[in-house]
């Protein structure tokens, strides 16, 4: 066991947060319009690990949510469409885990 860090116990003495745990912090969200592709730079996430998620905000099953990716400190999103399916309004968000 580490001799530093934060350990939290509940009122029964069970450890609810330990010095080895990897927990998450919310960093970024953006609702992006169907068909729009763009990016944002978050300089403060340099050196930190994150997870990016994209979900649709429309229920039509012939619509696809955006692709999302991170490169360095830039998070980019790309609209997806085809001949018989179209881009959906999407929610892009990111959380940090280091």
């Amino acid at each position, binding site marked *: 066991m580490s001799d530093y860090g934060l350990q939290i116990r509940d009122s029964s003495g069970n450890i609810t*947060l330990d010095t080895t745990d990897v927990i998450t*912090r919310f960093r970024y969200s953006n609702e992006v319009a169907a068909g729009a592709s763009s990016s944002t730079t978050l300089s403060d996430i340099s050196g930190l690990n994150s997870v990016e998620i994209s979900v649709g905000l429309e229920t039509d099953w012939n619509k696809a949510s955006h692709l999302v990716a991170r490169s360095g400190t830039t998070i980019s999103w790309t609209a997806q469409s*085809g001949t018989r399916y179209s881009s959906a309004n999407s929610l892009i968000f990111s959380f*940090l885990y280091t």
Partner: protein
Amino acid sequence: MSDYGLIIKNDSGEIQIDSTYRNLSLDQSGTSESISNDNTSGGAYTRIAITPSPLVPIVLIRPNTDRFVCVRNYYKSGSNFTGVDIVTERSQSTGIDWQSYRENRTASGDDYGLLVYNSSGDLCFDSGKNYFRIVSITESIILDDPPVGYANGDYQDVTHTGISDPYYILTPSSYWLRGEYNPAPPSITSFALWMIGIKKLSSTSVRVGWFCFGSYGIGGDVHENAGNNPTMKLLVCNP
């Protein structure tokens, strides 16, 4: 990041709490939630209601062994997120456990422990809340494009021996539309809609794979075989 306040790191040097960004704590959960798919555009998904709030929900899923599932959409009413749409295989149903995490919507109310606020007065951390822990991340799940027909497609199995019956996050989202034309009367193109989802194999393993969540036919040759088939990432999470 601010040059004042509190930063707490784990013993790998990774930040747990930083008094700038708000930790994601358990907001709601459900067990044995029935997920059904009637193979229509409006009924292929099942909407799980969540407490209305503008705070973005992070939804973790614990699938069953019988069907693939994945998060398809979030639903908003005005500025509030009010629902999460889950899909399973076309014309099938299954049961899942789920958890929704958000930035702390309200304080726990405990009269002891640790509260951390940021400079805007938002509650970053509350020791009375529950926080999911990331146990492992499988970064590079690469699958072949979906096949012809409706049977489940390519998959990759992920084993996590250190934890039993965890919850999962699968990202990014995927989508594929494949229509095959049959010139024989009635000369229709049969479309299959696909997503990549997860299905439980055992308490310590899960399958990530393509599943068909919808199908329909259109007269004439209007075939298509396109979509996004990204490299997938699976997070194994300990609630």
